[in-house]
């Protein structure tokens, strides 16, 4: 466990580049690269050691390469002071990086057909996933959507890695006008998909889970919740998820996720505490549920 656990390191920036509407930063981080499995993320300190911006920013790992002992690339859009600061980093600057964090995408044992669905920058973790699936002999198809053409991400890479790649934009500036779920059903049927992987905003994950369910295909979703720590201690990134025992718990996206089985996430209740969640106001758990709780492993 500890060998696969996250590390905290000061990493030199190898390069910062623009990718359409996003920035991509590559850091030299051998400890993170060697432990990485697709779907995991890093958190990055912003503003320096004396910054008044305290909280680390989480980013899905987009690429890992063996250069310089191991490099890690993550992508982001400038949204506030933290990401603006990051976009101004230059080669050789040091970044405080923690990772890899979170549960990775589970990979199928057999060479099955997988469709990977991404929304905006949520597409980032799907690229190393596609490589891992291809190494297992899986067929990979991509469905990537975004608001506009400059936010569809790595279209060329997607076309190169995947059997097929379908793109959608809200404004029709690239690919099909509409949303990923408008084309997903067709892709699942044409590719005879056995599994769906999705990453993006919560409404998209909810819609993708519904489409996958209609086609009887299991779906793994990677959520993008805001979090303060990324390590499992702050309890601010919780969402309601149904466990294997049928009990809904408020679980931490950072350590219990970010990858969950889509049908187990209670999308309608995200942001609230469902009345039947373990420990909700007025909750009266059975003795069995309590016993199960102490047997559950944490982090």
């Amino acid at each position, binding site marked *: 466990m500890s060998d696969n656990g*996250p590390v905290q390191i000061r990493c030199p920036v190898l390069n910062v580049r623009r990718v359409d509407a996003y920035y991509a930063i590559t850091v030299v981080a051998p400890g993170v690269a060697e432990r990485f499995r697709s779907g995991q993320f890093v958190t990055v300190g912003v503003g320096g050691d004396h910054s008044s911006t*305290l909280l680390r920013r989480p980013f899905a790992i987009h690429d890992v390469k063996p250069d310089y002992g191991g490099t890690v690339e993550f992508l982001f859009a400038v949204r506030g002071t933290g990401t603006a600061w990051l976009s101004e980093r230059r080669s050789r600057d040091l970044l405080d990086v923690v990772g890899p964090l979170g549960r990775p995408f589970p990979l199928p044992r057999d060479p099955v057909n997988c469709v990977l669905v991404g929304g905006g920058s949520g597409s980032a973790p799907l690229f190393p996933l596609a490589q891992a699936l291809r190494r297992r002999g899986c067929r990979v198809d991509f469905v990537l959507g975004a608001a506009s053409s400059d936010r569809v991400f790595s279209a060329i890479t997607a076309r190169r890695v995947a059997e097929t790649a379908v793109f959608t934009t809200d404004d029709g500036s690239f690919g099909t006008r509409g949303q990923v779920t408008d084309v997903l059903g067709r892709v699942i049927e044409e590719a005879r998909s056995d599994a769906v992987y999705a990453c993006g905003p919560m409404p998209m994950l909810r819609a993708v889970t519904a489409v996958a369910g209609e086609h009887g295909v299991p779906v793994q979703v990677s959520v993008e919740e805001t979090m303060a720590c990324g390590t499992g201690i*702050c309890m601010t990134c*919780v969402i309601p998820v149904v466990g294997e025992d049928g009990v809904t718990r408020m679980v931490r996206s950072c350590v219990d996720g970010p990858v969950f089985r889509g049908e187990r996430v209670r999308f309608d209740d995200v*942001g609230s505490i469902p009345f039947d969640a373990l420990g909700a106001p007025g*909750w009266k758990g059975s003795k069995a549920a309590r016993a199960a709780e*102490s047997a559950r492993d944490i*982090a």
Partner: protein
Amino acid sequence: MNTDLRIRLGPAELPNPVVTAAGCAGAGRELARFFDISTIGAVTTKSVMLEPHAGRPAPRMAETPSGMLSTTGMQGPGVDVFLQRDLPWLLSRGGRAIVSIAGTGMGEFGELARRVSEADGVSAIEVNLACPDPADPGGRYFVDDPASAAAVVSTVRSHARSDVPVLAKLSADVPDVVELATACVEARADGLSMINTVRGMAIDTRTLRPAVAGGIGGLSGPAIRPLAVGCVYRVHEALPDVPIVGMGGVRTGEDAVEFMAAGASAVAVGTTNFSDPSACARVLRQFTEALESRGVERAVDLVGAAHRSGVGA
């Protein structure tokens, strides 16, 4: 130089003064992936309640200048799971446990005090007084009224094993923190932890809605450090023999020096654990170096040093 870092909280001795703040370190397990949890003074565990609690709805957190607002609503698995799973894990790794307890009334506080103090290996109990008082018509917290806070402390003290020290967790959101501290000590608290988060609010100017669910959140981080240091200073001045665990925005070893100079015997790292998962180990190292560079041989010699050097011209 071999600096003596040992400190005492009533009958409990800790190997050094750096501990975690309640709610900022789980029960140590997550942070143990980044440093050896047995090396710090103690882990103050997330407040445990009698029953499982799902906590509050989202959003639970908002970043603010040099701090954060949070409102997790004490999500946790309840005392059964804590005693069966979390506490044994911490002790098995050589960690020391200050167990924070939170009750919905006197009955719960009493039962929690009894059960937690009877578990082997608990170094101290910290009483989370920032819980709504069911007897208060305005829904105020126990800590908002010195008499209510004292009643809780007295209940906990009488139910806890006598050799387990009881620390009262104080808030700075009160008219007179010295009056509150004195009431808790008269109710036989063995020590005081201060300060808890401060009530605050941030408003999203785009939506014109409060940034955290429920509106009010607890402000933590370096933004509240001067407030915390001021409280520690005033309480130590009034009650110089009562051990204090100082906390509020501790980020570096120098910050720990500041709290101890104000009168704290131990110093808790809170929000900084979120931004730097190895912060406790770093703060301890920096604190040790700070003592060595000043030629201070014993950490306890630093406690209250600012009172002895005068308040300046």
